[in-house]
């Protein structure tokens, strides 16, 4: 994100940038470098969000709606990218260019929990 004063913060533009990040680095074909780059951008955006919240007041406040969407979009994006980074194999629509092929060790799910503001990922056995 380039440095922007909150007065010219445009949440609609920020959503487009977030979507481009996810498209470029968290699509079906993934690498460690791309996923780490995406996580860096998602976390930087999340960190900046609280100071950029538009003041509420207008009817059908599209800027505030976009800001609220960004709050959840960055969180969901972080979950997707973090789980993809942890899964060091390729399987279905998750293709790691740096880990081609399925790994039988990875025949498992990953569970993500939010703990004190941070994500915790742990593998779990696939239910029988």
């Amino acid at each position: 994100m380039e440095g922007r004063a909150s007065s010219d913060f445009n949440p609609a533009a920020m959503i487009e940038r977030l979507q481009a990040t996810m498209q470029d680095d968290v699509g079906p074909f993934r690498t460690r470098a791309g996923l780490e780059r995406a996580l860096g951008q998602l976390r930087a955006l999340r960190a900046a969000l609280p100071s950029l919240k538009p003041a509420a007041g207008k009817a059908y406040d599209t800027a505030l709606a976009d800001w609220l969407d960004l709050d959840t979009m960055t969180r969901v994006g972080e979950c997707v990218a973090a789980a993809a980074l942890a899964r060091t194999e390729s399987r279905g629509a998750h293709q790691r260019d740096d880990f081609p092929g399925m790994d039988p060790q990875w025949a498992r799910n990953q569970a993500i929990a939010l703990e004190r503001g941070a994500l915790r990922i742990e593998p779990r056995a696939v239910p029988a």
Partner: protein
Amino acid sequence: MSARATLVIRRGAPGEAPREQTWEVPFEPGQSVLDALRWIRAQHDATLAIRYSCTNANTCKECMVRIDGKTAYACTARLREGKMRIEPLPNKSLVRDLVTEIAPPDERLAS
């Protein structure tokens, strides 16, 4: 080289004097009026109020506006060179800018 449409958009909330704001929007043939409204929000003014959910699939039916005096879906109306006048629906109560109250009364949230 892309073409340019000139969108003249009526803005304002109930109780305010309506005002017109004009934007030049570059476009490729085939792009929709909704594309232009979304471009204006991301490039210039995110506070422009428009209502849409599905983005150009014409399934949500929420983007109805008045385009050059005719009611149309912003997502199926095509951009063209020259001036296009975009206004809220005249027969629905205004919420703000291009957003009007289009839900049937028994489907509205209590206010």
